[in-house]
């Protein structure tokens, strides 16, 4: 099972990095960029092929470690490995 996790700051939480990156893009002439947010992206393999079990495991990882539930949200996707 191939797993992709996206962790993003909750919408109301100030994204200091995103703010700086957007500012830099503007000064490079890309003024049209708005609402930029920066998040984290994890990819990994999970041996198991039992989808339900894998999903429960990934959810647990996201809640406990990959995201900080106080300020972040997460989404994940599972794919059978090729």
């Amino acid at each position, binding site marked *: 099972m191939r797993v992709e996790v996206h962790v993003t700051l909750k919408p109301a939480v100030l994204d*200091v*990095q995103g703010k*700086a*990156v957007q*500012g*830099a893009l503007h*000064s*490079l002439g890309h003024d049209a960029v708005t609402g930029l947010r*920066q998040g984290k992206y994890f990819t990994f393999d999970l041996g198991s092929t039992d989808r339900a079990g894998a999903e429960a495991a990934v959810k647990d990882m996201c809640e406990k470690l990959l995201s900080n539930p106080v300020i972040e949200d997460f989404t994940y996707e599972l794919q059978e490995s090729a």
Partner: protein
Amino acid sequence: MKAAVIVFPGSNCDHDAVHALREIFSVETHEVWHGDTSLPSDTELVVLPGGFSYGDYLRSGAIARFSPIMDAVQAHAKAGRPTLGICNGFQVLVESHLLPGALLPNRGLKFCCRVIHLKVDGKGSPFTADIGEDEVMTMPVAHHEGRYHADEDTLDRLEGEGLVAFRYCGPDGSRGEAHNPNGSLRDIAGLMNPGGNVLGLMPHPERAVETVLGSADGRRIFESLLAAGRRAA
């Protein structure tokens, strides 16, 4: 000698570089705002100081590279004039492609502030000409992204051309993982361009210019440069 210390938003060792140059070495030193587009006329040395330009957000040095003053810095460097990047300044040099490779988060994934030892290496440059091969220098490092990375071919080429300016070592000059504070490949602490006029290093020589601060070894780099300037004049 006339020096310019570039002040980026978030630079925080600019004061220290200015203090060292002005007070310790009596060098006429100008603070140059990142938004300016030219250096003071006859600037001989440009210092890109340490700190957290743009908060070190995204990647250290990545945003500062696009500051308006950087065109003038590029021109200065490419004209073969001394350009010194310390810590964040090294990161800016690398992001600007004035030096090859990249500086990644430390091996320990933590900010690391400690006193380290280093030795010169490489083919010699105005910054290192007067420093003996066996001299072990002591000075602080203070950074989160100091792990030098380049692919193997590049590393071989850098070593082959003698462009590794400084390496981390132990108090006795020996190399080993314990002496390398950040996991830098091949213990690289500082790097120069083929012309030897552009130097980037992670340790802070400007914080080691008075014995009362624990070490005055950083003077060796500045003194070497000043002597080279006098020789050239």
